[in-house]
């Protein structure tokens, strides 16, 4: 949120509605209504004085009404913009006789109770819908007594109760007696997957959310009993299955399959009785618990029907926006120029939403000017910093936020007495525009060459003051901030004397560091604007298409004869009904031949260089010498996955002739309408799911695609009159429409039978497999399912060979599962920790087609964001090697996971060399250097030491 709030190219309108959209793609006119916030957004410093005097108390929406707020308030602690807002509903009124206290108390005069609503018309090229979700009201599922029984809470309320900054301070207690619960029971799928409630789909996020919350409660109350009632545990994301297994094994959490029919309350104790049928035993059980958490369904954002009307885009009956093609193009809406992302099209978790968001950004950008950002040249005067140190100290009052606690006049005089300080002054608001100019005047007037601003946190304000310095020509790295607000006056408000003493120390420390600062220059580096995409599957193709539309030249390298990867082998795709080859053909039509050069039967010979300047050498895969060296600015790795190959004898594979894998079935189903195997028509086909997934052999996590694929194949068989039976562990159809497909399969008569890894179905038959035998828990009988053909649904696994090939040149880290590790599982799913190297599709983890396409768009956006300029500025805070001290041991080379340090021969000896384009300045190498040869700019040993010295040894000097 912070990033959006202060991004130079983003204008953020909060508290605003879209009224009308006219025009067409590339040229929309959007009429918006700014609702009055009654506080000047640009001037408010979020000091909170207004809320302090406000006499009104109202329930806090962010805390789900469990906490309180004032009528003028900050919605939550990290809100962006940080400005306060006044609720028109709660405020006593504009009449100063009635109240108006906030208007009086605000020193910056930000509160305006007569602020009108405003209408504005914006001209935009493209529109992105990211309206997200609302929550189903669990009162509709009246059998669970939400709001009738006090100790029944929903998952959002639980989230607030568990939050350390929430209304209960992170303590989970029962509402009836304020005591910790002895037993907590989660009920999943409240509303979701239920036609009766008109929510036929899976909400996707609740299983993992419940498991996460359960583990948090486990940490808090090690002795509490925790149950989760579920239909299927859908832990389908990267690393989710391992998390679920941890909850099973270490969390001591009781997972109960079955959905409770109703709750009763014991009015004496406030305890709840859960009535449920245990589907594994067939018995109805009454279970006493102290607290029930409802995992309520996710529904489209309120008013999405109205918004869709305004936008001219279509939604489904519930209000989720409809993409043009849910499988092949999940981002484009039915109206051109309007793009969809996140939960606006259906429930999604954070990772998938972030990928789609980036994807929508690159699509929208295609309607804007070509990739190059305008280059602004500004005149910066020269500034002479030579000569003796001249430090200036500015002490900010921040209204009364600092001045109300600390003795700011004393601090100003104190600062002036510190060594090399030639100037000090007080400022009412250091960050105000006018004050910035004043600081610049004072810098010039007093010929300052180091500046200390004692104010708030450098995390938000260092960029602002650095800019102030830069504009007068003073190197921005000659600034140091003393955080006397967030880390002093605000946290020691009760203790003003000690707080002032501490502020003296903080200023003294900042001056000490300032005296040791050195000017640093941001190096500009020219970058290349071509992109290398490795892998020509659906992900690689889509990435290339989107990048070409943004005017980049793309080199697409594919090792086989044809592009299209696995997808081109698929018989039919759901829900569009087109074949895999058709989808690939549509994508190939979009290929701009001038912009995309496809190299088939090619492999990587060598990669060198770094972000913006990679050099890639190709060779022909068949050994023919056709080396080609290409200069590229970024590399996208999309080499995909391999299918798990069952070992001989695993579920009878290769032991019986009538056992095949699901991919083999796909090939067999492809050509004919009548399905014949071994020259015989078939009557019974069985599937076994999770072969090579979710287990010790093969992949530890869920392969995501196989449940949907098996259901699709089972439907096809069933329609040919063949009885299909699917042996599964959980049915994980998490896609918006896939649940409908699952329902269709059951209607058609496909049988679904659960098995556990401990009790897999037994194979019956001598030479030919005849049947699968399983134990039916309710009847307590062994039952045989006749089987003419057994299909093993095999999972995905990382393609070790192609990953190893890449790793020879680029050291992308691998996760525990063997797939390439992304920069951050949620916030950086397509980036690696090597700048300029990106991943997309199944190289990062199992994905289906629409997820892969989403990611391919995301990666295009990230590449675009990196290369949409002619040069990149390199952060000068990097490590530096003192070559005289370096003995070339290579410890730093091993420590740095960014690969920024290498050993070089110099005058007959090995010395470490830092590649500043790769170094991120964390400083870990310096810590490991045995000879102290490494230092970090701006955080040098000497600078850290000077601060320690100022704090600990120089206190009595003044």
């Amino acid at each position, binding site marked *: 949120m912070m990033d959006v709030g202060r991004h130079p190219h983003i204008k953020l309108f909060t508290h605003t509605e879209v009224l009308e959209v006219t025009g067409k793609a590339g040229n929309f006119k959007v009429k918006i209504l700014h609702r009055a916030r009654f506080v000047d957004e640009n001037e408010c410093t*979020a000091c*909170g004085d207004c809320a302090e005097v406000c006499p009104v108390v109202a329930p806090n929406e962010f805390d789900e009404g469990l906490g309180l707020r004032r009528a003028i308030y900050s919605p939550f*602690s*990290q809100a962006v913009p940080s400005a306060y807002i006044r609720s028109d509903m709660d405020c006593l009124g504009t009449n100063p006789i009635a109240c108006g206290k906030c208007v009086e108390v605000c020193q910056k005069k930000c509160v305006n109770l007569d602020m009108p609503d405003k209408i504005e018309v914006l001209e935009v090229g493209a529109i992105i819908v990211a309206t997200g979700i609302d929550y189903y009201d669990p009162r509709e599922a009246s059998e669970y007594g939400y709001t009738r029984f006090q100790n029944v809470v929903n998952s959002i309320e639980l989230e607030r109760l568990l939050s*350390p*900054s929430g209304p209960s*301070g*992170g303590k989970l207690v029962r509402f009836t007696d304020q005591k910790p619960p002895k037993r907590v029971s989660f009920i999943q799928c409240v509303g979701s997957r239920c036609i009766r409630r008109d929510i036929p789909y899976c909400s996707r996020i609740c299983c993992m959310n419940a498991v996460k919350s359960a583990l948090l409660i486990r940490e808090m109350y090690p002795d509490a009993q925790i149950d989760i009632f579920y239909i299927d545990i859908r832990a389908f994301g990267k690393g989710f299955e391992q998390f679920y297994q941890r909850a099973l094994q270490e969390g001591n959490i009781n997972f109960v399959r079955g959905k409770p029919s109703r709750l009763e309350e014991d009015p004496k104790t406030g305890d709840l009785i859960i009535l449920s049928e245990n589907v594994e035993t067939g018995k109805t059980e009454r279970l006493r618990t102290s607290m029930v958490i409802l995992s309520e369904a996710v529904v489209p954002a309120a008013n999405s029907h109205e918004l869709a009307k305004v936008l001219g885009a279509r939604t489904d009956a519930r209000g989720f926006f409809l993409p043009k093609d849910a499988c092949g193009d999940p981002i484009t809406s039915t109206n051109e120029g309007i793009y969809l992302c996140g939960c606006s099209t259906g429930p999604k978790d954070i990772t998938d939403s972030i990928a789609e968001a980036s994807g929508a950004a690159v699509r929208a950008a295609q309607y804007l000017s070509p990739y190059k950002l305008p280059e602004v040249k500004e005149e910066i005067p020269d500034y002479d910093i030579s000569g003796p140190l001249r430090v200036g100290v500015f002490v900010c009052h921040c209204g009364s936020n600092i001045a109300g606690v600390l003795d700011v006049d004393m601090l100003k005089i104190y600062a002036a007495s510190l060594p090399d300080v030639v100037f000090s002054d007080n400022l009412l608001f250091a960050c105000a525009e006018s004050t910035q100019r004043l600081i610049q005047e004072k810098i010039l007037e007093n010929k300052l060459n180091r500046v200390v601003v004692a104010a708030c*946190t*450098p*995390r938000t304000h260092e960029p602002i003051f650095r800019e102030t310095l830069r504009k007068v020509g003073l190197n921005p790295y000659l600034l140091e901030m003393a*955080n006397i*607000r*967030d*880390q*002093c006056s*605000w*946290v*020691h*408000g*009760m*203790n003003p004397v*000690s*707080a002032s*003493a*501490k502020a003296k*120390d*903080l200023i003294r*420390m900042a001056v000490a560091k300032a005296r040791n600062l050195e000017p640093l220059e941001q190096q500009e580096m020219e970058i290349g604007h071509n992109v290398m995409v490795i892998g020509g599957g659906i992900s690689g193709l889509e990435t290339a298409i989107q990048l070409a539309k943004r005017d980049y030249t793309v080199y697409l390298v594919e090792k086989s004869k044809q592009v299209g990867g696995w997808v081109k082998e698929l018989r039919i795709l759901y829900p569009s009904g087109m074949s895999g080859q058709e989808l690939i053909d549509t994508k190939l039509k979009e290929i701009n031949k001038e912009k995309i050069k496809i190299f088939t039967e090619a492999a990587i010979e060598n990669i060198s260089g770094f972000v913006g300047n990679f050099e890639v050498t190709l060779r022909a895969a068949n050994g023919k010498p056709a080396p080609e060296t290409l200069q590229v600015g970024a590399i996208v790795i999309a080499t995909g996955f391999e299918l798990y190959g069952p070992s001989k004898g695993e579920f009878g594979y290769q032991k019986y002739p009538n056992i095949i894998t699901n991919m083999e079935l796909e090939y067999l189903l492809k050509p004919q309408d009548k399905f014949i195997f071994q020259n015989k028509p078939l009557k019974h086909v069985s599937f076994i799911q999770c072969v090579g997934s979710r287990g010790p052999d093969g992949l530890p996590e869920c392969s995501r695609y196989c449940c949907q694929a098996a259901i699709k194949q089972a439907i096809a068989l069933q329609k040919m009159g063949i009885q299909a039976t699917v042996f599964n562990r959980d049915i994980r159809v998490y896609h918006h429409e896939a649940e409908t497909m699952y329902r269709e399969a059951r209607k058609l008569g496909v049988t679904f039978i659960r098995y556990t890894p401990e009790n897999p179905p037994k194979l019956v038959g001598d030479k030919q497999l005849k049947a699968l035998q399983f134990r039916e828990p309710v009847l307590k009988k062994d039952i045989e399912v006749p089987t003419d053909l057994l299909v093993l649904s095999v999972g995905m696994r990382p393609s070790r060979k192609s990953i190893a090939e890449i790793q020879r040149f680029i050291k992308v*880290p691998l996760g525990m599962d063997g797939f390439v590790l992304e*920069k951050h599982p949620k916030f950086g799913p397509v980036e690696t*920790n090597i700048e300029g190297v990106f991943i997309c599709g199944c190289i990062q983890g199992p994905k289906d087609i629409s997820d892969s396409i989403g990611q391919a768009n995301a990666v295009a956006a990230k590449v675009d964001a990196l290369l949409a300029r002619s040069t990149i500025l390199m952060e000068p*805070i990097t490590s530096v090697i003192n070559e005289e001290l370096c003995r070339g041991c290579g410890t730093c080379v091993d*420590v740095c*996971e*960014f690969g920024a340090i290498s050993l070089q021969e110099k005058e007959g000896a090995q010395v470490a060399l830092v590649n500043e384009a790769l170094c*991120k*300045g*964390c*400083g*870990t190498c*310096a*810590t*490991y250097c045995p000879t102290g040869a490494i230092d*970090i700019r701006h*955080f040098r*040993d000497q600078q*850290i*030491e000077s*601060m*320690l*010295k100022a*704090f*600990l*040894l120089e206190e009595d000097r003044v």
Partner: protein
Amino acid sequence: MAKKIPVKDFEPKIVVFACNWCSYPAADAAGINRMQYPPNVRIIRTMCMGRVNPGHVLKAFEMGADGVLVSGCHFEDCHYSFGARKAAEQYKKLEQIVRMLGFEKERIRQEFISAAEFPKFVKVVREMVEQVQKLGPTPLKGVRKVPSRKQVESIMESPPS
């Protein structure tokens, strides 16, 4: 309860090394939420906790700090992905050195505090101040300046723990 406190009203000096991405913002958030903690700590910001080497901590003690807290991101949240993990390795070394030097291991502490965990930051600071208060002033107090005879004697006498 106050029996064991060697110096009454002793106000310890505690150095906190906090990383730019998690623990420093957590300290800021404590302020935004007006949570109160004892004013004994001075925070030094580094980009990553991996930057803080045992030498920095020992230097702080040499100069007379009574306690040092090193705080950064959780392993999986580390902005530099491996810095926090490496910092944990370095911290083991530091613990050994502190043990070898013979002063109380309670004077040092390593914590992993995310930007959202500001109540944890406050809790850790409170605990740390209380704990160091119980231990009394550092035996190295004033070593860096010319130590008084009494101070030298007290260092010689204090038994290694």
